[in-house]
């Protein structure tokens, strides 16, 4: 049995997960060792869930073992987030019966109903945290629900994966941490959304569209390209490319952060500022989207919609 050790510290440590998986022979038994986790956040949770599920699908029952964290607080957190249920049984908890009010548990994205249930539950969680000013809180909750729904639909429609994507979200009352070399601080609350899959990836998806393939061959970062308005590989199949563009614009206006990671490429907006574009040392299997928005700053999706009619569309 091959043991895969997964560090919980920072997205860039996921490269080690991917590198280890590349060295595993097809069909061999695999143990995912999460025992040393002392904390974990939604981005790594969704990435690990997607990879474990994908590896399990390629093997017979019983060939994949997951060693859960030793730390009780982390085990409790994973239980709240339905980590085992989502991985082992591919199920969603009944989101509207759970008592936890901080988190949206891991949701496997299989159907449009999954999308809408998860988005509605996230809206309830956020609205419950912003009751002191409902005239502000309700639009924010709606904006987050719609953003989550759009991102989920992106993954459902574009992943082309034998497995499905996983999404989850978490509310932070006040939080400060460092990630990928940046210091993040959220006062008066923040919401973090994360979605990951092990599908074909952004570049492969966009390469099916001739004009987008040309842009990529000319050096465009596929992840940055995918966040531009109207960019979709499925325009001929009725899609219009709203999801990632809306997510990027909301993060920019909110001075929040947004990461899109796929294949060899990373694109990010940190604190609403100048985008970060990078190539990864180890190509990433699939796609990850992460977003952190400050709840004390505007999250005005109507303002983003208002930009639509006047936008130039990449043709």
């Amino acid at each position, binding site marked *: 049995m091959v043991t895969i050790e997964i560090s919980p510290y920072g997205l860039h440590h996921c490269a080690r997960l991917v590198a280890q998986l590349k060295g595993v022979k097809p069909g061999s038994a695999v143990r995912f060792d999460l025992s040393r986790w002392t904390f974990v956040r939604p981005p790594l949770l969704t990435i690990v869930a997607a990879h474990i599920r994908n590896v399990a699908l390629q093997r017979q029952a019983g060939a994949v073992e997951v060693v859960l964290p030793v730390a009780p607080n982390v085990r409790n957190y994973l239980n709240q987030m339905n980590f085992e249920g989502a991985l082992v049984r591919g199920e969603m908890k009944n989101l509207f019966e759970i008592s936890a009010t901080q988190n949206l548990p891991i949701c496997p994205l299989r*159907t*449009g*109903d999954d*999308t*809408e249930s998860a*988005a*509605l539950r996230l*809206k309830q969680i956020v609205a419950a945290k912003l009751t002191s000013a409902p005239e502000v809180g309700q639009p924010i909750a*709606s904006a987050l*629900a*719609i953003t989550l*729904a*759009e991102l989920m*639909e992106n993954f459902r*429609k574009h992943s082309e994966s034998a497995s499905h994507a996983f999404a989850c979200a978490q509310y932070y009352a006040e939080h400060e941490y460092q990630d990928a070399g940046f210091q993040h601080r959220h006062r008066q609350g923040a919401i973090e959304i994360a979605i990951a899959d092990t599908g074909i990836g952004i570049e492969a998806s966009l390469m099916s*569209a*001739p*004009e987008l393939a040309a842009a990529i061959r000319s050096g465009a970062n596929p992840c940055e390209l995918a966040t531009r308005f*109207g960019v979709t590989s499925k*325009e*001929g199949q*009725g*899609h*219009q490319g*709203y*999801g990632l563009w*809306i997510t990027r614009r909301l993060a920019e206006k909110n001075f929040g952060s947004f990461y899109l990671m796929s294949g060899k490429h990373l694109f990010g907006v940190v604190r609403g500022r100048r985008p970060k574009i990078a190539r990864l040392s180890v190509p990433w299997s699939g796609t990850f989207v992460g977003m952190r928005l400050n709840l004390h700053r505007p999250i005005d999706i*109507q303002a983003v*919609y*208002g*930009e*639509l*009619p006047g*936008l130039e*569309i990449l*043709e």
Partner: protein
Amino acid sequence: MIRPADDKPLAGSRDFGIVIRTRIEEALAGGDDVVVELGGLEDMSPSFADECFGKLSEQFGEDVRSRRVQVRNEEPFRVLLDGVIAVRLHRAQARAARPHASR
């Protein structure tokens, strides 16, 4: 009358957009004028709006709300609907102007 909120409170997927658009198309094909009641909907995503109202507008070659489809209580979603319909019509016009384009 077609009322999406009777199915679910959040119109957040293209799949649901196809369901509602199909109902509208079937009603129109039957010769009826159609009323789409958006009251009761908590939220609407761009993908739903595009799949339903955007594509209908593209079929008609003009804003679907200016014809036989009356949309009631659209105010919370007006900016979104205006935007997705404008994008669909713009793209259709651009394609029509380039008949030999690859897509």
